[in-house]
C-alpha cells in the first residue's frame, strides 16, 4: 500500500542536490513523509505531532555527513529518536525483589491476551526456577476460569481454585495466603477484560491492588490497537499506576505503533512481547526491533 519510509525519503531528497546542512525548507517534505509513516503505523495523532516536532528541531542545522544520503540521515535521526522514546535498550526485567510471595497483576481491555500471557509468564518464571501460582480472578467471562485452569494444566503449573460466585478481590487475597502457606513465590493474577471508562470494574482492580500490593501491574495491549491506545493506556495508568506493558499479537503484520502511544502517555516500559498463541511465544522487549518494524526497515 505505502512504500517504505526509506524509499520515500530517498525520493524526497532526490530533488535536492548538494545541500550541506538540513534546513527548515529542505526537510519539510521529509517530515511530512515521516508523519504519514507513523500515522500509518497507528501511532497516535498527538504523539506523532510532538514527535515530528522533536525530529525537526534535531534535524535542522545538522550537517549532512558524507557517508549518508540526506534520506538516510533523516531516517537515522527518526530511528534514534524513536528508540529513545521507547526507552532505548534499558533493562525491562520484572521487578520481583521483595519477600515472597510477590504478585503480578495482569490488566487490560477485553481479548487483549491477559489469560494467555499469564500462562506464558508462568512458564517464563518456572524456567527461572521460581514457583508461580496462576490465579483466575475473572468471574465474568464465560469459562474464563476453565481457560486458565487448562493453560495451567498444559504447562504443569498450579492454578488456584476459584469459582465464578466469588468476588475477585477475595479470590486474590485468598490466593496470596495460599501461596504463602504452600511455598509459591510468585502469584500471577488474571483479571477480566474491561474498558478503562467502566468505573465499577476499574474500582474492582483498584481494590485488588490495595489488597495484594502487586509489585508488577502489567497492562496487556494488543499490537493491532489503533488510535485508542492512548485513551485506554492513559485510563489504566491513571487509575492503577501500572508498572509495565506487554504487547501481544506481534506475530502478525501489525506495525505496533500503538506501543509508542502507550509509552508516550504512560512513561512505562514495554517489558514483553507476545508472538503467538502458543505458551512459549513470549519474548523480552527490544526497542530497536519495534522501531525497525514501525519504519519498515
Amino acid at each position, binding site marked *: 500500500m505505502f512504500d517504505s519510509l526509506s524509499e520515500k525519503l530517498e525520493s524526497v531528497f532526490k530533488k535536492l542536490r548538494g545541500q550541506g546542512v538540513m534546513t527548515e525548507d529542505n526537510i519539510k517534505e521529509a517530515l511530512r513523509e515521516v508523519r504519514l509513516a507513523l500515522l500509518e503505523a497507528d501511532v497516535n495523532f498527538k504523539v506523532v505531532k510532538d514527535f515530528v516536532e522533536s525530529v525537526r528541531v534535531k534535524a535542522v542545522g545538522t550537517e549532512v555527513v558524507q557517508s549518508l544520503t540526506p534520506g538516510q540521515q533523516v531516517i537515522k535521526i527518526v530511528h534514534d529518536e524513536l528508540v529513545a522514546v521507547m526507552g532505548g535498550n534499558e533493562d525491562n526485567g520484572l521487578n520481583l525483589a521483595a519477600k515472597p510471595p510477590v504478585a503480578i497483576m495482569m490488566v487490560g*481491555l477485553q*481479548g487483549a491476551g491477559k489469560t494467555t500471557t499469564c500462562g506464558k509468564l508462568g512458564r517464563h518464571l518456572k524456567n527461572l526456577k521460581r514457583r508461580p501460582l496462576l490465579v483466575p480472578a475473572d468471574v465474568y467471562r464465560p469459562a474464563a476460569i476453565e481457560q486458565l485452569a487448562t493453560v495451567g494444566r498444559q504447562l504443569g503449573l498450579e492454578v488456584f481454585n476459584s469459582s465464578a460466585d466469588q468476588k475477585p478481590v477475595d479470590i486474590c487475597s485468598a490466593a496470596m495466603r495460599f501461596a504463602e502457606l504452600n511455598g509459591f513465590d510468585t502469584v500471577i493474577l488474571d483479571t477480566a477484560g474491561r474498558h478503562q471508562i467502566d468505573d465499577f470494574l476499574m474500582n474492582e482492580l483498584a481494590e485488588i491492588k490495595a489488597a495484594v500490593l502487586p509489585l508488577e501491574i502489567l497492562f496487556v495491549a494488543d499490537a493491532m490497537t489503533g488510535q485508542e491506545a492512548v485513551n485506554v493506556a492513559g485510563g489504566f495508568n491513571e487509575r492503577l499506576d501500572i508498572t509495565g506493558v506487554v504487547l501481544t499479537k506481534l506475530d502478525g503484520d501489525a506495525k505496533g505503533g500503538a506501543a509508542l502511544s502507550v509509552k508516550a502517555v504512560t512513561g512505562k516500559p514495554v517489558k514483553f512481547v507476545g508472538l503467538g498463541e502458543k505458551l512459549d511465544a513470549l519474548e523480552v522487549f527490544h526497542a530497536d526491533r519495534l522501531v525497525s518494524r514501525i519504519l519498515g526497515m
Partner: protein
Amino acid sequence: LGKKEIDADTLEELEEILITSDIGVKTTVELIRSLEQRLGRNELKDGEALRAALKADILARLNAHHSVLDTDARHPFVLLVIGVNGVGKTTTIGKLASRFTGKGKRVLLAAADTFRAAAAEQLEAWGERSGVDVVRHKEGADPSAVVFDACKAAVARQVDILIVDTAGRLHTKVNLMEEMKKIHRVISREIPGAPHETLLVLDAATGQNAVSQARLFKEAAGVTGIALTKLDGTAKGGIVVAVSHEFGLPVRYIGVGEAIDDLRDFNPQEFTDALFQA
C-alpha cells in the same frame, strides 16, 4: 468549528477527527482532498458546511454497501464466523444465538475452535443461555471434523440456523488460513451453497491492521459481512469505513457490551454521527 470562515485549522481539525477515529490515513487523505476540491470550487461556505459535506461522504461510503442479513431464504442457513484472536467471535455468536431463538428460530452451534483453552466450554456456556445445543469434540480435535458433524446434525435436526465458531487466527498465518479454507470447503460440500454468510469480526479498537485482516480473510474465505465489536468503549471503529468501502462489505452488526442482548443492527447514520461526537 462553527460558522466561521474556513482556514487551514478547520481542515486540520477535521483531519484530526478522522485520524483519531481510526478511519485510516488513506481514506482520510481521500476525504480531505475531496473537501479541498470543493472548497476550491467555492461549494462550501463555512465550517458547518464542510463538516456536513464530510459526514455525507462517509455516510455515502457506508450506505453503498449496507444491507441487513436475511437468514430466511435457506434451510439450514449456515453462518461462519471468523477473525483474528480475541476480537469477540464467540461472544457475538452467543448474542446471535439469543437473537435468532428470540425470533423463534431453531439454532445449532458448532465449536470449531478446538485449539484455544476452554473455547468449547465458553461456547457451551453461551449456548446454555439461550437453550441452544453445541456440537463439539475434544480439545485438539480436527475442526473440520467438528464442522462435518455439525452440518450433518443441522440437516438431520432440521435447524434453521447453524453458526460455526472458529479459532482466532492471524490472517498472515498460512497454515491456519489453510485450516480455515478446509472448514469452509467441508461446509460447502455438506450443505451446497453454504456458508450463506461468512462474518468477519473486527474489534473497534483495531487500527489500520483491520484492512489487512479484511483483505486476507476475504481472499481465503470469501467474507460477506462484518461484525464490529466493543463499540461500548471509547473506540470509534472508524476503520470499518475503509474496510466496507475498499472490499464492498456490509457491516451487519455492532457489539456494544458483554451481555447477551448487547448486539445491534448496524446503522450507518448513527455510526457516522458517533464518529463526530467528541
